[in-house]
């Protein structure tokens, strides 16, 4: 029966290939349609574009176009003092900004030799803010997968709960989205009074949401129909394409910087990154949902284990004249999207020589996405993009 309704066309003959291996797509032959998804399109993640070449409803070629959000951060940071780097860098990725702050802070600390002086309290607070950032990202991202299939209710709940976390961020850091909290040397404030109580209330709501989202998404016949077996990443691709984070974990490769190269106080936390084996959209979604549970648990652990009081910033040189000797370092952390790293070069002056950010989307959204989209339908483009958690600003910086 299913064979009868299998619409899979034979693509061995066309599109033909040119001698150099690229596709021979002649738009004037009227066999193909060129369709741009984005940048003005509600179905792309952020302000980017995918240029699709369609044969019927099937994609034969996809090209990712980025640069719509290009601000030249790496150039701008070269013009800014070390302490001025973090307000600039944080805007490199709006979905989970704290990761950038941490990397800038960590890189400068490592290169200037202050990384051992960071007070314990500050490290716990950094970890709390990073986990909260992961949580708010997942609250948008997990139901967002259903949103790509026009199941928008979960998104609405998720964004509401994310807003509650943003309220906690506001209390802790003084801002909703661009927290600018982790500063070279430490953090910019202790927990306010009653923070833990209010956080716990929010977490309880999120616990409830987690169950509901399971009923809505993962026990949903049509959601399964749309996501199982679609957008499969084979295990062999992980190293070939440089896939990291949840996308790698969903195809059975357990990579998590928090476990592999522990930073901050992650060694003191009890967790095991969830994995799946199928590597399709459903599996990625499922891994992320489990990660949501785990992040809630991690925040609870952090709040229980962190000290009550302590210094928030190490004694550092005057920020206006801070110089760092010549050196280079690569620091990474596990963001909600995967390994997030920064290559930082200093030359002895009061400004960095080069800052290069390596976001997971750099490979996910270009090389991998372009490969994965071939042979799928227009309807799957958005779902595939969201399941890879592509985030254009970290590609083009």
């Amino acid at each position, binding site marked *: 029966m299913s064979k009868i309704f299998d619409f899979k066309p034979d693509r061995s003959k066309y599109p033909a290939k040119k001698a150099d291996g690229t596709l021979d797509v002649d738009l004037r032959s009227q066999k193909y349609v060129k369709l741009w998804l984005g940048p003005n399109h509600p179905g792309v993640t952020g302000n980017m574009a995918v240029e699709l070449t369609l044969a019927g409803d099937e994609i034969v070629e996809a090209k990712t176009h980025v640069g719509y959000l290009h601000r030249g951060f790496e150039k701008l940071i070269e013009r800014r003092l070390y302490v001025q780097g973090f307000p600039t860098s944080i805007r490199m990725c709006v979905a989970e900004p704290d990761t950038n702050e941490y990397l800038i802070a960590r890189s400068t600390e490592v290169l200037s030799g202050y990384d051992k002086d960071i007070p314990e309290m500050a490290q716990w607070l950094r970890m709390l803010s990073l986990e909260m950032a992961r949580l708010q990202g997942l609250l948008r991202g997990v139901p967002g997968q259903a949103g790509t299939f026009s199941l928008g209710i979960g998104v609405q709940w998720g964004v509401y709960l994310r807003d509650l976390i943003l309220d906690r961020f506001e209390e802790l850091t003084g801002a909703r989205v661009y927290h600018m909290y982790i500063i070279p040397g430490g953090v910019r404030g202790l927990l306010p009074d009653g923070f833990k109580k209010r956080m716990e209330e929010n977490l309880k709501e999120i616990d409830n949401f987690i169950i509901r989202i399971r009923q*809505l998404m993962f026990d949903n016949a049509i959601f399964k129909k749309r996501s199982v077996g679609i957008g499969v990443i084979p295990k062999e691709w992980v190293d070939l394409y440089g896939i990291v984070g949840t996308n790698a974990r969903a195809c059975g490769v357990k990579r998590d910087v928090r476990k592999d190269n522990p930073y901050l106080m992650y060694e003191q936390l009890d967790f095991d990154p969830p994995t799946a084996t199928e590597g399709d959209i459903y599996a990625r979604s499922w891994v992320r949902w489990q990660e949501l549970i785990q992040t809630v648990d991690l925040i609870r652990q952090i709040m229980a284990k962190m000290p009550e009081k302590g210094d928030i910033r190490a004694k550092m040189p005057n920020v206006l004249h801070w110089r760092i000797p010549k050196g280079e370092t690569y620091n990474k952390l596990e963001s909600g999207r995967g390994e997030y790293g920064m290559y930082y070069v200093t030359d002895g002056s009061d400004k960095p020589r080069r800052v290069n950010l390596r976001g997971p989307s750099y490979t996910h959204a270009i090389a991998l996405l372009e490969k994965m989209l071939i042979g799928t339908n227009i309807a799957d483009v958005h779902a595939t993009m969201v399941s890879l958690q592509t985030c254009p600003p970290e590609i083009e910086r």
Partner: protein
Amino acid sequence: MNIKDVFTPFTTWSKVVKDPVTIKNPIGREAAPRYRGFHKNDIDVCIGCGTCEAICENQAIDLVPVEGIETKSGDSGLRPRIDYGRCCWCALCVDICTTNSLNLTNEYTWVDTDPDAFIFTPGVDKKSWDTKEEGWKKPVPNYHFYGQTRVPMEELHAEERVESFVEFVKGYSKKQAEEEADRCVACGICTATCPAHMGIPDYIAAIRNEDMEEGMRILYDTNPLPEICGRICTHKCEDVCSVGVNGDPLSIRWLKRYIADQIPADVDKYNEILYTKDIKNNNKKVAIIGTGPSSLSSAYYLSLLGYKITMYEKLPQAGGMMRYGIPEYRLPYDAIDKDIDYIVSLGVDIKYNVTVGKDITLEQLHEENDAVFAGTGLHLGRSTRIPGSDHENVYQSVDLLRDIVTGAEVPVERKVVVIGGGNVAMDITRSMARLQKAKYGEVNIITTSLESEDIMPADREEVVEAREEGCTIIPGYGPQEVMIENGKVVGLRVWKCLSIFDENHNFNPKFDESDERVFEGDMVIESIGQGMDLSYLSEDTKKGLEFGPRGRVQTNDNFQTSLPWLFMGGDIIQGPDVIHGIANGHRAAMAIDDFLNQGR
């Protein structure tokens, strides 16, 4: 397909009976107490140091003059104006604010149709959020963008230093100096307060850059006596230092000394660093009376311009009050020599043991030279004129200090009483303590002053150090009589002083006669101020000069007297202060140059 998967999603509908979670009235909702909203500034506390401007990575902050705020010492009169077309609300400006006057409120709504409207001076342009209390403030605890505490200066212990006249302040090591220099926020507020307007932030930057030669050049731009100033300057700059508003002010003086100490005492090296090897002579001559700070300063800057300078010194060595007034433990002689040797190396001729007015007249100097600068200083001690003050065992501090330097015999008794609360009083107190220690093995000295402890004119650290060294300082008593028994001084009778000035701010001390004390002492030293000796001015010359109050010669802003060829500066015009003298000398040198080149 699982049939459960068809029905489970419908559980979602249970939400429909729950109340919406929407915020009823979102516009103007109160933000979190720590929210980084719009700026407010307490303009009365703000000193316009501009660190906010320096740290702003968006160049969002301008410093602009504000009506009603005057530019004065310690306050630039500028206030930050913020461009909300640039700001990113990172609050680094709040975190670094030296006075804690700049804060962010938790107000965040500002909608306008005019893009040029988003620029305002917080605290000056009235905004609705000016009264808001909550918002971002500098985080606590231990969150500082620059060092709050001064790097302690290493000194000899009190017991050790009272043993001898050896300089007891050791000076900063490289590490200490750099750490201290690192605290500077480079605002430049201090520059205006410094009488010589030295480029303080610049030479501190030179320390950070480990470029001592550059530092030296900056120092010599305005001050040819850095070794001396680095030790004994009254450091008015430190009083207004913006880092000192919250925390210890920068030790600007020690940093200056650090730079000067790094350059070896080698005049060739000096000439090389300061590019003074090939100054062209301009064939004009200027005579300078005295070799104090103002004289040396004018000599230095005039010789840079190519003038031939001849200096006349009454005493056998140059330096004036710096050498003969300030004890060696504060200002060692080699430091003085180092500075003076360099000035001499520029071709300055110093004639020692020549008293103008006696050995050579002022008129002669005028004839031989194109202009004359007189920086003769205050070398006459003032007397309290209380009963018994004409006793031979009542001394003037200036005389004693000079004698200590020249090596003349100084009378040292077992018990000494000093009258005076200024720095000179402290100098003589501590010098006498050292002499007592050497002669008798113990210190027994009482210093009393009319002013109470809190308004004593002496530097605080001087008082503290004097006490550490075993001197007794009892401020707030007015001397009434030097008690003499059997022709010998036995003590000083004093009354408690209630107030020094009357309602019209005239000197008119009031005493509490019931609180009478007697300070025992075998000798009394008066140190209540100095007077000038203008005996070298002939009657003719005096006629040509104008005199102001308290017998001072009237000069214009450029220290030119009403005799155009005669310039006067230093203590005799401005009162006793080294750095003022240096500034006067520099200004007078430029004025002399202008005066002599008018015809050109």
